[in-house]
């Protein structure tokens, strides 16, 4: 038996990292990178082809970058992260529906088209996981503030 390691981080500092959160950071990070890169090229090279789709792609990219940052930083960013994930969830559902109902408005695909089908529905699942994770971090932090009176460095 390997000897037990000390727990990675105390919940008191509301770190979103530590434990399963690190996986979310990776998945969000990859999506943020790919979405940002694609969006920059779409807008830079042929924006007029499908302005609405490309603006939405850019919004999605910014939200993914923000959510990745919040997940990695934790602390005061947890609240921001919750908003980012909520925007994402609304975005993927609304754009997903719109792309099915009014396909003519989307001559080219966005990350959120057809509920993120082009990305293996990861964009649909991810905000839900993100929200669940942020809530867990919030709860752990709330519990820790009640228990301990020691000052916590941020």
């Amino acid at each position, binding site marked *: 038996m*390997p000897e037990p*390691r000390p727990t*990675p981080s105390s919940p008191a500092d509301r770190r979103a*990292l*530590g*434990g*399963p*959160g*690190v*996986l979310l*950071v*990776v*998945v969000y*990070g*990859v999506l943020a*990178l*790919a979405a*940002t*890169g*694609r969006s*920059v*090229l*779409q807008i830079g*090279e*042929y924006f007029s*082809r499908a302005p609405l789709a490309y603006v939405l792609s850019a919004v999605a990219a910014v939200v993914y970058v923000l959510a990745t940052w919040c997940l990695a930083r934790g602390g005061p960013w947890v609240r921001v992260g919750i908003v980012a994930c909520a925007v994402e969830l609304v975005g993927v559902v609304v754009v997903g529906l719109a792309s099915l109902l009014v396909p003519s408005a989307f001559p*080219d695909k966005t990350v959120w088209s057809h509920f993120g089908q082009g990305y293996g529905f990861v964009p649909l699942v991810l905000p839900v996981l993100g929200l669940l994770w942020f809530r867990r971090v919030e709860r752990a932090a709330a519990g820790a503030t009640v228990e301990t009176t020691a000052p916590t460095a941020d």
Partner: protein
Amino acid sequence: MIAWLTYVVVGLSVLLCLAAVWYAVRDRLIDDRLLVVAGLLELALVVLLVTGLVGLGHITDSAERATFVAYLVSLPVIPPGTAFLAIKEKSRWAMGSIAVGAFAVGVMSARLLQIWMSYA
């Protein structure tokens, strides 16, 4: 060139992913051996990036080219990023970071090749 480079990348990413899962099961932290595999993958990705950018004219459709370039540039960021997270994270989940990252590299490079091949 792109084709066999991608095969090398996919092979290395599968290897890295499986190794990371194995480490996680054994509850081992990141070590030099795993970092060497990640380093080799990174090297292959940088070569793929340069080769892909040089041969970019091959892809005539601009939308496909945008996806191609975005993936090409994103890929080399992933192994160092996940390795960095894995070094900071001192739990079993650290290996999850490497495994998920390696999986993403495999999928994205396969998609790259798919785009490339459609313009053969």
